[in-house]
């Protein structure tokens, strides 16, 4: 089992869209994929099941009132399972503040589950939910939109992950790739891509995700763009992304076991 956290403290960069469609792409490569929706907006939950803020959810697992096995859902995508999120996650920072080993609650809950990949969607913040997601993952994928605002504060992202690596003692946590999203054939997109290429070099994922209405339409139909419009530019891009992620982050069939989590 390989756990991948989709993170960026900026909102609107395509984290949820990437989590949903990457999961569907990996599933089409015959992997069993579990998506964990750690965002209080629960958009990944909606996109994969059509349900709005269902309960119980991962929130109940994090606060210790449910076992994780009881909140795993089959989704509309074949070979993709989901641990849904709901609006109560927005209070999680406060509610988990006094809990012991609060950053490790997700990793501990996931222990023993058997999937090839776990994809963890995170909120656009660096609170306790994102810390749980990073602690549970070994690899981080960072979607960055190729828009004017995307470069503001981007240099802080590496530092933030470095800080967390030290704080939570996660020596193996690393950025496996930076994914360029909202690509358009414009000067801004091309120039931003060029800057990212220089900054991230081989960590920049080659596949660019185009800005495309089919992605929105697919969310609305409660399925991935690979189901809704597989031959669209975004459908093809997400399939290519899945291939690239598969090459960069190998899947394991062993049950999930984050060694650090056992220490707490």
């Amino acid at each position, binding site marked *: 089992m390989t756990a991948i956290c989709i993170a960026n403290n900026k909102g609107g960069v395509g984290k949820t869209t990437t989590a949903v469609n990457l999961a569907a792409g990996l599933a089409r490569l015959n992997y069993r994929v579990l998506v964990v929706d750690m965002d209080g907006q629960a958009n990944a939950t*909606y996109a*994969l*099941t*059509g*349900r*709005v*803020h*269902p309960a119980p959810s991962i929130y109940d697992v994090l606060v210790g009132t449910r076992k994780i096995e009881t909140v795993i*859902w*089959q*989704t*509309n*995508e*074949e070979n993709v399972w989901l641990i849904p999120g709901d609006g109560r996650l927005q209070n999680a920072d406060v509610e988990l503040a006094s809990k012991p080993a609060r950053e490790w609650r997700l990793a501990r809950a996931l222990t023993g589950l058997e999937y090839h990949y776990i994809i963890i969607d995170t909120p656009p913040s660096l609170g306790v939910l994102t810390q749980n997601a990073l602690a549970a993952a070994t690899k981080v994928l960072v979607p960055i939109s190729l828009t004017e605002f995307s470069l503001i504060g981007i240099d802080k992202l590496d530092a933030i992950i470095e800080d967390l690596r030290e704080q939570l003692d996660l020596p193996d946590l690393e950025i496996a790739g930076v994914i360029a999203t909202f690509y358009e054939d414009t000067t801004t997109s091309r120039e931003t891509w060029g800057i990212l290429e220089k900054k991230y070099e081989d960590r920049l994922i080659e596949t660019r995700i185009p800005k495309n*209405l089919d992605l*929105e*339409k*697919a969310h*609305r*139909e*409660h*399925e991935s763009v690979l*189901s*809704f419009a597989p031959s669209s530019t975004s459908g093809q891009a997400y399939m290519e992304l899945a291939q690239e992620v598969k090459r960069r982050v190998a899947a394991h069939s062993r049950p999930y076991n984050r060694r650090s989590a056992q220490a707490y």
Partner: protein
Amino acid sequence: MSQRTRARTTGAAPKRTKTVANDEPASPAALPRRGKRKATADTIAPANGTSAAGVAGQGTAMVSPDALARALRAVAAELERDPALARRVASALGGMTEGEQDPPSAGSHTGDADAHSAADDAPTATIGRTFHPSIVTGVTPDLGSGVPDPFALRERLGLDGLRDALESLRLGSLRAIIREHGMDPSGRLNKLNDAAKLRERIVQAVMKRK
């Protein structure tokens, strides 16, 4: 996509969504403006029905009522004097007031009839690209977790209840039901983007199994 299909998007089908669907303008270009106007009214109008000016007054407690009234009168006079400014302010607030139109970009139109004829002349190619979002309030009735089980739904809600439940589901969920319950051995339905046909196929399969 038909109006009926759009109205179903909300699941709970609140009245407001239905109204939007029923009197939806023919012009694709007009729809975002309408949506924006509605959202603005909801956002700006305070819950107790007082005016936006009233809200502004509450937010500036340090300003005397006379001074506030003078300031608002001065702003109103300036807006009346300068229609371009009025349009920019209205646009910044999120929409025009009822009955007003955006400044024409090419030629001019003065009423609904013109607006409709403009819509009729609009190239159809843009219609397919138009996205019609609507308010999502949740799915009813309760479908349990995971992929809905149409057989259990029929058991619990009856055939009409099952049909209602299926009406609230979108393509992804319908395809998942068909896949998970082996209703399409040929795999042909999987590529169909017609929700009505998928619903009918599910109902047929459920009735057959009885």
